[in-house]
């Protein structure tokens, strides 16, 4: 009965395993057909084959059907390309599973089902790259483990229901003995099985969890240790759409709709200190520039002229901050980062335009996940600078481009009369001279940002089509998104003779405290303004720390700043946001350390830190100098200071790793010692008991004491058995004690069985020994 109980559970778990395998395959092949068909086959076979038994394929019929399926699949797959062939093989495994499902179930059937599903997962692993594969694989591991556990229990329990004894050596009776008599005389023994308790299910669940947890440790160790030498960066499949950032080198006002509220991840960026390599969060929100546009015409921003890309500058400047960037495949070549930047090492995938304003990846890498590290001098003291040094002062056409305004066509009036007037009035009311570019730019930015006349909105707005969109925004409909704010500011600045351009990129992003990086999504797309300041307008205090102050610089202004900050702050506080951070960090780990684990990353991310950590930890443990310093610090510091330090430094993963390793070594040494002691035959000190638990030696002591009453004492040369025989002989010589003669021998035999035979006496034997001892003690104690 218990066997059936396991079998039901087993069927369920095997079914789960099959479904999970087809789901994994379905994710890779982007179809749920196989999963649905498998579910149907499982349901139908469970009813018609397992429950009612109405239809069962015989072994020979199943073989023929399977052969037919294999032949048909082979014929079809021969004309497919590699990917199609793999899918065909995976499908074939499903078809074979269906055949098995309609057969009577034996442990062998379940094994075959499990192996076929495993084959499907193996194929799926070549098709599915996403982190979902990892999650599903975990589920599959659990279901598979539980299935195997149940399979073992089911088959073992079924085997032991009145299992006859196994013949180790056949009966070899004398020649005259017939087979009949031999069989008649052969022992007949049956092994039994312990009835199962109802708590087995819960226990099995615990075991499956334990096995999975332990297996994951092994999995991690083995996976990270397996050698890598040529891991290819995964290409986005040909049919897979690239993610769009919604804008590139042309920004048309009012066309931002496709990136609004789009949570597709564009990139992840981590800022690392140049020396320690420790990641940190910026004090302000990072502005990650992709490109800049300068020319405005008919409501659209474009670049004035394209320049040919060049390798990244690699001249090191300090102080700098490292930017570690993971870029998703995108429909544009531009990459986003904090400017100005330079390369830490040559990277053939990356290029920069001649002005250093734009970072791009080579066309071949657009459809790939790209991970790279560059440096920037645009961050000082964990804060992104508002003034960016300009490589060389702009002159001539380059500077003129920053003052470009739409020209009035013949017969038309100035497109920005209102905008000019607003800008001029704002400066006039502040008593500012437009010649003071720095102050004027700040004032106009403040006018848009903080005057309360302009409002941020991502909703499409009705505009006066007779007016330029920016003119309409500044003068009439004062509601718009970042492009209106930035565009309006650029035009207002230019109207006052201040060169400026619009920067396009992303602002902020989701800070992930687990991974210490920013996750940038489509919805973080942003535009802002960069104002060109030549030497006479530069605020010198901003470059005081630099040895050679630049001759020109860009001042970053964000007229829409503040509006998004509130929204993001609200977004980051929710539980959902926290969960999303975990998921995203898992995604990062999966992408970098599972799918994208290559030789370099393996060396840099695993081996070297591990070796360094272990080395440093051992040094910390064994170095007398370190311990002296440590004791000195502790001795010289007040208790409160020590605890303050301890609270922040109580755990170190390196220390933990070394401690765990050290403990393992100690445990191994202990086990080896025990094994050696066992191998050398060191006897254990185990108290042997007999009967109702009395120590066995007491049995013999009582016998000796009783015999001593008769002056019978064991000689040093005698064993207990010899002594018992001699004592029995002495007793037999006396008529009145003759009946006691066999007792010492019997008692000693029982004593030997327990003391040296390692067995315990059953109740009957224990009582007999006790009775014999009592009789001896009683009879020999009497004076004679």
């Amino acid at each position: 009965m218990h066997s059936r109980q396991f079998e039901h559970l087993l069927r369920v778990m095997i079914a789960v395993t099959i479904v999970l395998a087809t789901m994994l395959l379905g994710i890779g092949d982007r179809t749920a057909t196989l999963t649905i068909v498998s579910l149907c086959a499982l349901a139908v076979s469970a009813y018609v084959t397992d429950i009612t038994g109405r239809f069962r394929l015989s072994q020979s019929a199943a073989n023929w059907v399977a052969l037919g399926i294999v032949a048909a699949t082979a014929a079809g797959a021969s004309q497919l390309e590699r990917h199609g062939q793999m899918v065909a093989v995976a499908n074939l495994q499903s078809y074979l599973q269906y055949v098995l499902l309609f057969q009577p179930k034996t442990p062998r059937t379940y094994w075959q089902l499990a192996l076929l599903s495993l084959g499907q997962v193996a194929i799926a692993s070549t098709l599915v790259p996403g982190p979902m594969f990892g999650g599903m694989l975990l589920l599959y591991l659990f279901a598979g483990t539980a299935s195997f556990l149940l399979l073992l229990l089911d088959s073992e329990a079924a085997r032991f229901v009145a299992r006859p004894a196994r013949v180790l050596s056949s009966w070899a009776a004398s020649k005259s003995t017939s087979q009949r008599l031999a069989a008649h005389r052969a022992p007949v023994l049956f092994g039994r099985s312990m009835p199962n308790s109802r708590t087995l299910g819960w226990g099995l669940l615990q075991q499956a969890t334990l096995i999975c947890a332990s297996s994951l440790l092994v999995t991690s160790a083995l996976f990270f240790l397996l050698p890598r030498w040529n891991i290819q960066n995964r290409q986005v499949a040909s049919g897979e759409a690239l993610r769009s950032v919604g804008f590139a080198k042309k920004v048309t006002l009012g066309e931002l709709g496709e990136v609004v509220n789009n949570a597709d991840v564009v990139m992840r960026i981590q800022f690392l200190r140049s020396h320690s390599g420790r990641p940190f969060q910026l004090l302000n929100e990072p502005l990650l520039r992709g490109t800049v546009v300068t020319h405005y015409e008919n409501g659209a921003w474009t670049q004035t002229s394209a320049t040919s890309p060049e390798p990244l500058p690699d001249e090191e400047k300090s102080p700098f901050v490292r930017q570690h960037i993971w870029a998703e495949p995108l429909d544009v070549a531009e990459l986003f980062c904090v400017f100005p930047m330079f390369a830490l090492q040559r990277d053939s995938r990356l290029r920069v335009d001649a002005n250093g304003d734009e970072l791009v990846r080579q066309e071949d890498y657009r459809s790939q996940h790209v991970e790279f590290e560059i440096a920037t001098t645009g961050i000082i003291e964990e804060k992104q600078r508002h003034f960016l040094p300009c490589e060389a002062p702009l002159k001539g056409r380059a500077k003129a481009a920053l003052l470009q305004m739409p020209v009035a066509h013949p017969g038309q009036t100035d497109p920005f009369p209102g905008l000019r007037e607003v800008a001029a009035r704002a400066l006039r009311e502040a008593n500012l001279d437009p010649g003071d570019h720095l102050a004027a730019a700040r004032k106009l930015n403040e006018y848009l940002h903080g005057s309360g006349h302009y409002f941020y909105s991502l909703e499409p707005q009705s505009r006066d089509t007779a007016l330029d969109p920016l003119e309409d925004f500044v003068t009439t409909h004062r509601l718009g998104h970042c492009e209106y704010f930035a565009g309006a500011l650029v035009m207002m600045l230019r109207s006052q003779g201040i060169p400026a351009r619009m920067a396009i990129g992303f602002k902020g992003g989701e800070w992930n405290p687990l991974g210490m990086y920013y996750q940038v999504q489509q919805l973080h797309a942003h535009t802002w303004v960069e104002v060109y300041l030549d030497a006479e307008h530069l605020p010198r205090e901003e470059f005081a720390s630099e040895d050679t102050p630049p001759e020109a610089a860009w001042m970053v202004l964000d007229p829409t700043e503040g509006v998004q900050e509130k929204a993001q702050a609200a977004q980051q506080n929710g539980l959902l946001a926290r969960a999303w951070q975990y998921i995203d960090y898992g995604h990062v780990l999966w992408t970098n350390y599972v799918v994208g684990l290559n030789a370099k990353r393996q060396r840099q991310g695993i081996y070297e830190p591990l070796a360094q950590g272990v080395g440093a930890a051992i040094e910390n443990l064994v170095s007398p100098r370190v311990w002296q310093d440590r004791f000195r610090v502790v001795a010289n510091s007040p208790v409160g200071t020590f605890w303050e330090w301890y609270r922040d430094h109580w755990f170190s993963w390196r220390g933990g790793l070394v401690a765990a390793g050290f403990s393992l070594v100690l445990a191994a040494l202990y086990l080896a010692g025990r094994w050696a002691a066992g191998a050398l035959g060191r006897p254990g000190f185990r108290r042997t008991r007999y009967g109702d638990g009395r120590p066995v030696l007491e049995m013999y002591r009582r016998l000796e004491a009783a015999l001593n009453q008769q002056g019978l004492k064991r000689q040093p040369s005698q064993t207990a058995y010899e002594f018992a025989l001699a004592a029995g002989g002495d007793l037999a010589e006396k008529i009145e004690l003759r009946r006691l003669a066999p007792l010492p021998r019997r008692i000693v035999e029982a004593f030997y069985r327990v003391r040296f035979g390692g067995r315990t006496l059953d109740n009957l034997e224990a009582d007999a020994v006790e009775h014999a001892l009592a009789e001896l003690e009683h009879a020999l104690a009497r004076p004679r």
Partner: protein
Amino acid sequence: MPRQRRIRICREGVYYILVVVAVLAGGTARQLNLLMLLGSMLAGPLLFSFIYGRLALRRIEVGRKLPSQTRADQRLVVDVRVTNFRRWLTIWTIQVEDVVQREGTFEDPGEKLAVSVFYSAIAARETKQVSYDGRLPQRGRYRFGPLRVSTRFPLGLVRHSLLLEQNEELIVHPKIGRLANDWAQVVRESPTGSQSMSRRGLLEADFYGLRDWRPGDSRRSIHWRTSARRGSFVVRQFEQRRSQDLALLVDLWQPPEATDEQLENVETAISFVATVIDEACRQSGRYLVLEMAAHEPLCRAGTASPLFFREQMDALSFIMPHHEPQFPPSLGHAVALVPPSLPILLISTRPIDYEALREAAAERDVQLTDRSLRGVNVAGDDLAPYFQV
């Protein structure tokens, strides 16, 4: 207790290892991280299987409890106990295999059987007992052990086993049959009277009561406490038991090339003797003489008691027939040792050669005509009225 560990990869384990190796090799060769991940994930449970079994069999104690005595063809139940001394860990799917072998002769070694019991789970600090049962149709000495404890947990890929040299012996006594009602008359119809009033020791009689001391009474029979209370000697009075004493002379013969029937006759004869002794020992005090002409002659005499019974059964468990063609003279000589009052029952596995018996008895100056002698030829039909197996 010596322990030997062994690890054996099961057939399923071989397949599993092949799959893991194939996936890992494929993943590494093609440099596919996810395939390597899958291979690593499959390797985890395999490694766990290797480690778990070793751990599971460490802190356990296995014991076997044999019955103190058993008879051939009697139902035998052997309890096998497994104690898990662990504090936390439940151990799963434990199989204990015991080896049972009858101690045979060089020509006739006994069959070796392995019988297993199964424990699906033994919780921490728990003792579970499962029995195996059956019948041992042949008398003799059976060796039990060694015990092999094994587990295939968790996935049935690897079998860890531990061999425990926990050997024990069990003496299987001859089969006890049933004596027919006619048997009672066999002894009573003895011409010289088989019922004797023999003198026995004081302790071999039943207490009857107290009476006043009379001259000639033994001082040992004085009941001192009552005498002290009364002020005059009082002795204990015993009732003398009326015993059915008997002498069994057995010619346990078997030709060197015995047929099945002759083999069975020997066993029947031994079983008959065992049954008679069993019957006699049901009441203590009976005096029995047993003389067996066998491969190793057996000569026993004594008063019926559980101890006497046990010793004779042990002896009968191992006795082997002789192959001498002539009637053994030792049986005739033994007649001289039997008190004349005792009826003699001569049991043989072949037709009784009374002439040879008479001659052998005459060598010891004993006339068979003076004795109450009844012969039973097991090979013939003589036994049927008295005995059924």
